[in-house]
């Protein structure tokens, strides 16, 4: 199979998987307990690492931009730069890349092991649709928790920038905060929340698809896990470009 056919085939299979699992939204049985459990794993489980990473990203952003801004006597705009970079771009992208590594790989490994040990077949044989019981709760959990985690990451990242501004750059908190608040508008916030929704969906779909198509024993599980992380991160970065373009086009200025 050449690459083009492979891409079309995988897109078709992933679309069918999403469509069949989406039927579980309107038809019984509903797997509420599984969904809440997955939200706990994705959201609560990833919160500390997402916040820790965001704090240092905010701090580094403040350090890097302040030195450039200082050349123009504009270091008071540090807050503006940190906040806009985080909310528009780095918050969603880096949080979701972390999720692809932590959650996407876990999904692919778990479903992959279930596939090779015939647990997926056993589930179907026992009259339960694995797409509804396993796939849908994971999609919902990632679509809901990715933007939630991004909000936390944005806040903590901005605080990280503030700490550096206060301690190393000696910019007053009021100046940093005002500059950050003035720079952001509702459009940025909308864009910054739309992105993680799409990225969360990508992580869940890629993770589940890689897991469910696993073949070839434990080696296959390892391969699926790696593929899911690489594919999720690539798709996140590619879709980020197109989403940014869309968000800017829909924005108040509508340029580009």
């Amino acid at each position, binding site marked *: 199979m050449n690459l083009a056919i492979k891409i079309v085939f995988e897109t078709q299979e992933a679309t069918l998987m999403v469509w069949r699992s989406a039927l579980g939204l309107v038809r019984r049985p509903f797997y509420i307990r599984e969904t809440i459990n997955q939200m706990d794993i994705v959201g609560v489980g990833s919160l500390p690492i997402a916040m820790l990473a965001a704090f240092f990203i905010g701090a580094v952003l403040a350090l890097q931009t302040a030195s450039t801004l200082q050349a123009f006597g504009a270091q008071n705009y540090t807050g503006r730069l940190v906040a806009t970079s985080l909310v528009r771009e780095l918050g969603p992208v880096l949080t979701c890349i972390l999720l692809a590594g932590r959650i996407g790989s876990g999904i692919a490994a778990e479903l992959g092991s279930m596939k090779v*040990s015939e647990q997926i077949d056993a*589930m179907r*044989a*026992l009259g*339960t649709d694995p797409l509804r019981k396993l796939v849908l709760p994971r999609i919902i959990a990632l679509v809901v928790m990715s933007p939630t985690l991004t909000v936390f990451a944005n806040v903590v990242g901005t605080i990280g920038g503030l700490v550096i501004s206060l301690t190393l750059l000696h910019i007053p908190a009021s100046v940093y905060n005002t500059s950050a608040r003035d720079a952001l508008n509702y459009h940025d916030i909308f864009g910054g929340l739309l992105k993680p929704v799409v990225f969360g969906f990508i992580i869940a779909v890629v993770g589940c698809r890689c897991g469910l198509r696993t073949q070839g024993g434990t080696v296959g599980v390892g391969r699926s896990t790696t593929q899911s992380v690489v594919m999720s991160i690539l798709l996140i970065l590619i879709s980020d470009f197109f989403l940014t373009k869309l968000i800017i086009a829909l924005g108040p200025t509508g340029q580009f």
Partner: protein
Amino acid sequence: MSNKNSSNAIIFENILFGFGEQIILNDVSFSVKPGETIVLMGGSGTGKSTTLKLVLGLLKPESGHLFVDGENITDFTESKMMAVRKKIGMIFQEGALFDSLNVFENVGFRLFEQGASENDVEHIVRQMLKFVNLEDAIYKMPSELSGGMRRRVGIARALVGKPKIILYDEPTAGLDPPTARTIIELAMKLRDLEGVSSIFVTHRIQDAQQLASEYVTIDEKGEIVVRKDEKAASSRTKFIMLKQGKVIFSGSGRELWESPDPYIKNFLL
């Protein structure tokens, strides 16, 4: 035609199945009567497990017709198959227990999915575990069980809901002889006391001999006993031998042992 279909538990009619270019089952036809056990034998890669997956609708044949309990399931959608699967219990090679669930949740899986209360489930699960003699393991995790125990939990799980048809996918592979005997005795109990129809996939000749020569009954004291009686056992047991996706033998145990076919002779050595 309809008469024939309703009087058989499973019918394979000229089934053809393959993965891409590779043909796994080639024009396979056979039937399983109610209460009958078909012992499906053959070397590795001859399509034995595929046959079971076709019955469950986990795979779809390329051509031919497949009837389960009187219904033509050949073109059934996944949602229609869910109803058919309620009549079938499947025992997988390694047990295929859900790792994240304990024995109780594994065995009661089907009932929990149907929304049964925990008390009702517990009652039935204990009954099933008693049948496979594993009552003490109810709250253990699959990782704490031995290979034989995992297969027995797999059997208990397949029996929940009293399916009319049971499919065994090499349930004795890799087990020590006494444990393998226990598993075969469970299969005989289901065949002789419960009247379950089944397909028993195996490549162990000892399994075939035991199924063809022994049967289970209840004695005067009301106890379950195993008796040697080839006639009684073979009236409920038929053998099918597959070779490269084709049925090369179909008949009783005696006919199988006496077959002049060199492949079969070599297999039975």
